[in-house]
């Protein structure tokens, strides 16, 4: 009663003003931040578009020069006036070395994943998993160095030479003579490289298998092997396949260590004619020749190889993503 009405009014006003100020400031901050984070997300999309743009833009000259024959050609001649470029031998080399890597790496990775999730107690499994993760942290150039100066002699002496001596004469597949730097060596080193990633993902996939699956198996009196083979693997099939395909993606794209051990041949000679034949992959040829590209067309041909590699890995990765995400999406619902 004593206080003048104006005071209460101004106080109310002030309050209103203040709260509206805070509210708007808050909204302004929120709106701004929202746009900042959307910007971050959009930037990542732009980067992918930029990758696509550069790959297409960079390979246009060679596509104009050679047409679609670039993808099926086998020539490789950067001499001006007589240029011919073809990607086919390197696609074959890429698939061959990755195929060897898959054949060796995937079973070993599965064994590791099974050991860690199904067999070993956590006290053993966790450190083993950690040590294998260290493998993933070693840069591929160091693998390459090791493979070039150490490992290739092991392969030459203990695997290739005996195999060639016993089988090489009768089965041309084990040809053309032990060499040490060839697609077989590249495949084995690639296998070592993909083991950490494939085993890590298979481990996750096996962990996503619901325990009821194991309980059912063991309650029927299954041994571990039977439980894994008849109850757990079938359940995790899609996820394991996805893990393997992701490993394939890695193997297909790996550059440096392949460059160092594959033997580096070009043109028709790069098409492997046996397990122990030197070859070349898409990425290793780029790495080898990029800095010595004789002409813009040569550089463009190398980028064209990159485009081929891009298409190859995109297809592999999208397939793997779909498989793995399906498996992992099923898992939480299936868990009790």
């Amino acid at each position, binding site marked *: 009663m004593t206080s003048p009405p104006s005071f209460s009014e101004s106080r109310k006003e002030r309050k209103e003003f203040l709260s509206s100020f805070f509210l708007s400031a808050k909204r302004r*901050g*929120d709106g701004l*931040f929202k746009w900042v*984070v*959307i*910007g*971050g*997300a959009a930037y*990542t999309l732009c980067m*992918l578009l*930029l*990758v696509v743009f*550069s*790959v297409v*833009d*960079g390979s246009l000259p060679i596509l104009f020069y050679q047409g679609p024959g670039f993808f099926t050609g086998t020539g490789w001649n950067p001499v001006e006036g007589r240029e011919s470029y073809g990607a086919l031998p390197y696609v074959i080399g890429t698939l061959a070395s990755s195929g060897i890597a898959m054949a060796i790496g995937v*079973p*070993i*990775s*599965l*064994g*590791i994943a099974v*050991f860690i999730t199904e*067999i070993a107690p956590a006290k053993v499994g966790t450190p083993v998993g950690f040590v*294998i993760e*260290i*493998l993933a*942290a*070693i*840069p*591929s*150039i*160091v693998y*390459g160095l*090791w493979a070039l*100066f*150490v*490992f290739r002699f092991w392969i030459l002496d203990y695997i290739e030479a005996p195999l060639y001596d016993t089988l090489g004469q009768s089965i041309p597949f084990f040809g053309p003579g032990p060499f040490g730097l060839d697609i077989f060596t590249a495949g084995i080193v690639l296998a*070592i490289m993909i083991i*950490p990633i494939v085993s890590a*993902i298979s481990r*996750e996939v096996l962990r996503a298998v619901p325990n009821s699956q194991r309980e059912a198996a063991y309650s029927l009196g299954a041994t571990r*092997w*039977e439980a894994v083979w008849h109850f757990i693997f079938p359940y995790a099939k899609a996820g394991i396949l996805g893990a393997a395909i992701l490993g394939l*993606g890695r193997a*297909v*794209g790996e*550059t440096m260590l392949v460059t*160092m051990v594959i033997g580096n041949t070009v043109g028709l000679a790069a098409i492997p004619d046996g397990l122990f034949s030197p070859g070349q992959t898409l*990425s290793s040829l780029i*790495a080898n020749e990029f*800095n010595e590209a004789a002409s813009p067309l040569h550089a463009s041909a190398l*980028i064209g190889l*990159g485009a081929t590699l*891009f298409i190859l*890995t*995109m297809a592999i*990765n999208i397939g793997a*993503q779909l498989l793995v*995400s399906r498996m992992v999406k099923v898992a939480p619902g299936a868990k009790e």
Partner: protein
Amino acid sequence: MQPRQERKKMIQDAMVRTNARRRLADKLFTAVTVACIAAAMIPLGSILVEVVKNGAGAITAEFLTQPQGSIIAGDGGIGPAIQGTLLVVALASLIGIPVGVLAGIYLSEYARDSRFARAVRFLNNVMTGLPSIVIGIVGYVVLVLTIGSFNITAGAVALSIIMIPIIVGVTEETLKLVPNSVREAGHSLGIPKWKVTIFITLMAAKSGVLTGIVLAIARIAGETAPLIMTILGTSLFFQGFSGPVDALPLRIWRLASLPYEHAHSFGWGAALVLILIVLSLSIVLRFVVLRRKRGRVNVVKL
């Protein structure tokens, strides 16, 4: 009576035999998985032993700080490569870390399942699998050709493209693990959403986000392929943003392809330095940042 007894005996014998076979198969299976572990450990052990054995001798103060001299005589060192690696990784982190963390925040806090978010998530996963040499093409076409010479900026941009998807994925995963009650507590105090996100949610997920960042840094520090197409490599120290620089992985590659003994021992030395940088990053992470178990995220990238 007799045949029934016999039959029973026969079945029992058969069961014992089957069980023995099953047990043997199981033992064999366990042995095979252990052999798989060994198959993965042997190369790891051999790599570490060889790098230390062959590289330790090369490391001197001169080796770490001087530019390369006559490689036949074994003069000089890999100073420019160390400097270049640190520079190019720092520059890439400057671009990659903020963008990656922001995009991760967007995916987890703002648009959990919108179509745009799904597209970003999917394409990020795809980008993680892109070969790094393909990403190098971006640096070459967009920056090297425009600027007219191989340069550090192109290398940093290429490396940041490799880095971003890793950080985005891990940030999103970790933020999703933060319980909603933490966010609600912030909102109930009247704190605006952006502040809650940065100072409460992100801080709660700190260790996971840091893990992603360190993983990404470790990954790009060892990348070689995109650097071939962007920074070229040189035996000189940093000469400005439009000139070539050197990097450890590139130097290792060049040294390994030379036919001199000193080049090889330099290469091993550089590999030792690189491994020390990369492994110490992940070990520091594991034992310092992640000492508290809570908020730890599974860092496997699909």
